[in-house]
């Protein structure tokens, strides 16, 4: 029996939410098509057995099992982009140690890797590149494994029954990814090793703490091109997939990258000076704090998320969250392809804020000095406000409040689903509504001109600086727009 289009739509909508956070590559489209076909067959059966039409699709999807998990597993299998190796600008140093041992150090200019005696010790690699490195082991199965080179210090700890995992580092490059067993695995790599540098694992009352060892007095860490010279470390931590507790990461001066950690109860990351890159996380809550470093969050499914940076930029994309608060003082905020069930707040003081294809219950974008630019925002309540900057927003849907003190506002809506309030002191307002929609209006300008589409308009008040009335039949919502010195165009 054929499943009608309405049901196909219902199924497609649910799958949309899950697959939106992943790239639309052939592998993901295939998985989605396969699941979709099976869901249609299941829905069809349910209807045939008497389940009401509006419940059949929902039940079939619930019966299916963890679809998001399948997509996440595919994402993990897909791993990272592989890059062609260009060895033409590699630097090779023959380093002779006291005592005569000679080590050949090769610095790969293109691939950001350093090898010592042929063994790769990656520096400055992203979490995705770590996944590629891991796959160079020819016996690797599809699970992510830790890099193949030999760390100077290896620690293991069984996490069953543990509720919290604290990772405490100081001046290090931290990489977190799923481990390959039931134990926590910590692999520490050092540019030069001294036993007192080795980290340790401590356990107390359900909390496992991994703490860094002694660090030498901060030596100048020189970065030449993409390379760090001087004392450097890389800490790779494999978190077992069975760990479902709270993860807390502290790293004072160094980057943190976490990839594909799922089923966490909470994740809390604190970095003073360093970037935080998170991809494919699934956790009940997420809090990230950096003073001086960018925060990137992508492809994740989370509950309430709080990202705060003083100087860094925030990039949040392709994720499904229950709540989002993203705050930066000096940095820019960029939010793309997000689905938020609750409230999303993007707040920057000096930076620009940009949002594209975001769906939320309530969405608030605010900048003090920067510009706001938005495309395709859907929410029950949309608020965009800036003090010194301008607002450019297209394809909005929802009750909207727009405020620009000194700047201009240029906005368009795809549908009118709530009241619109737009105000500016010194800037001009240009509001574009769908031609055929009906609305009440109240337009006011002190010194500027008023221009509007007057087809089907009835005025209740019409003076040079103030117009009130309604357009069309039975208008449900009201557009209130006012500017002091600027022009107003609807």
């Amino acid at each position, binding site marked *: 029996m054929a499943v009608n289009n309405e049901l196909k739509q219902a199924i497609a909508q649910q799958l949309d939410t899950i697959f939106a956070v992943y790239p639309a590559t052939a592998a993901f489209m295939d998985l989605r098509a396969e699941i979709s076909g099976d869901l249609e067959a299941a829905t069809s059966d349910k209807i045939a057995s008497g389940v009401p039409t509006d419940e059949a699709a929902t039940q079939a999807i619930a019966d299916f099992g963890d679809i998001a998990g399948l997509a996440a597993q595919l994402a993990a299998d897909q791993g990272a982009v592989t890059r062609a190796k260009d060895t033409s600008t590699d630097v090779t140093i023959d380093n002779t140690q006291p005592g005569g041992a000679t080590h050949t150090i090769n610095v790969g200019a293109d691939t950001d890797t350093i090898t010592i005696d042929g063994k790769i010790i990656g520096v400055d690699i992203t979490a995705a590149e770590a996944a590629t490195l891991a796959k160079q082991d020819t016996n690797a199965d*599809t699970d992510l494994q830790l890099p193949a080179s030999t760390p100077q210090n290896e620690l293991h700890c069984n996490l069953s029954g543990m509720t919290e995992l604290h990772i405490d580092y100081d001046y290090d490059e931290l990489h977190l990814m799923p481990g390959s067993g039931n134990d926590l695995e910590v692999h520490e790599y050092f540019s030069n090793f001294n036993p007192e540098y080795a980290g340790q694992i401590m356990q107390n009352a359900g909390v496992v703490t991994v703490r860094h060892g002694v660090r030498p007095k901060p030596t100048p860490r020189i970065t030449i091109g993409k390379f760090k010279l001087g004392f450097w470390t890389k800490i790779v931590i494999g978190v077992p997939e069975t760990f479902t507790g709270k993860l807390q990461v502290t790293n004072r001066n160094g980057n943190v990258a976490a990839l594909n950690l799922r089923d966490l109860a909470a994740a809390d990351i604190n970095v003073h000076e360093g970037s935080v890159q998170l991809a494919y996380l699934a956790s009940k809550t997420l809090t990230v704090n950096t003073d001086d470093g960018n925060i990137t969050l992508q492809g994740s499914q989370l509950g309430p998320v709080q990202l705060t940076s003083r100087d860094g930029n925030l990039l949040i994309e392709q994720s499904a969250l229950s709540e989002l608060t993203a705050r930066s003082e000096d940095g820019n905020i960029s939010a793309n392809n997000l689905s938020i069930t609750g409230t999303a707040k993007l707040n920057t003081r000096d930076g620009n804020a940009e949002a594209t294809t975001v769906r939320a219950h309530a969405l608030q974008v605010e900048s003090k000095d920067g510009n706001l630019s938005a495309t395709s925002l859907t929410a029950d309540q949309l608020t965009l406000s800036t003090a010194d900057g301008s607002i450019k927003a297209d394809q909005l849907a929802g009750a909207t409040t727009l405020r620009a003190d000194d700047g201009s506002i240029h906005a368009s809506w795809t549908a009118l689903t709530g009241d619109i309030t737009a105000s500016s002191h010194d800037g001009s307002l240009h509001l574009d509504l769908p031609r055929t929609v009906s609305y009440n209006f109240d337009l006011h300008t002190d010194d500027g001109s008023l221009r509007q589409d007057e087809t089907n308009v009835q005025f209740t008040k019409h003076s040079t600086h103030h117009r009130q009335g309604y357009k069309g039949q039975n208008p449900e919502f009201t557009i209130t727009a006012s500017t002091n010195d600027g022009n107003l165009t609807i």
Partner: protein
Amino acid sequence: MATAITKDMVRGYLTAIVLNVLSQGTSYGYQVTKDINALSGGAYTINEATLYTVFKRLEKSGWIEGYWGDESQGGRRKYYRITAAGKQQLQTERSTWQLAKTTLEALINGSK
């Protein structure tokens, strides 16, 4: 009264089960879950997401192959068929099961 079949009890045999079902005809995910349920007399229902991971594993081992069929309603549906290597694997799985069955019977019901 017999206790229920738990997922733990069946986990080690999912390869054998899926190969058995596919050896009796090419099929697709949802249909395979129905067949498994029917074969078990209703005692065991496999979670379809779990079945997908089994398909992936069996395909990687070369025991089944997936292909896209044309659906009359326009969408495409993914089918799986057992391969020659898969038929051989099924034989191996059946022998292993025979051994397990006999050994466990003796261990649980046998007298010293």
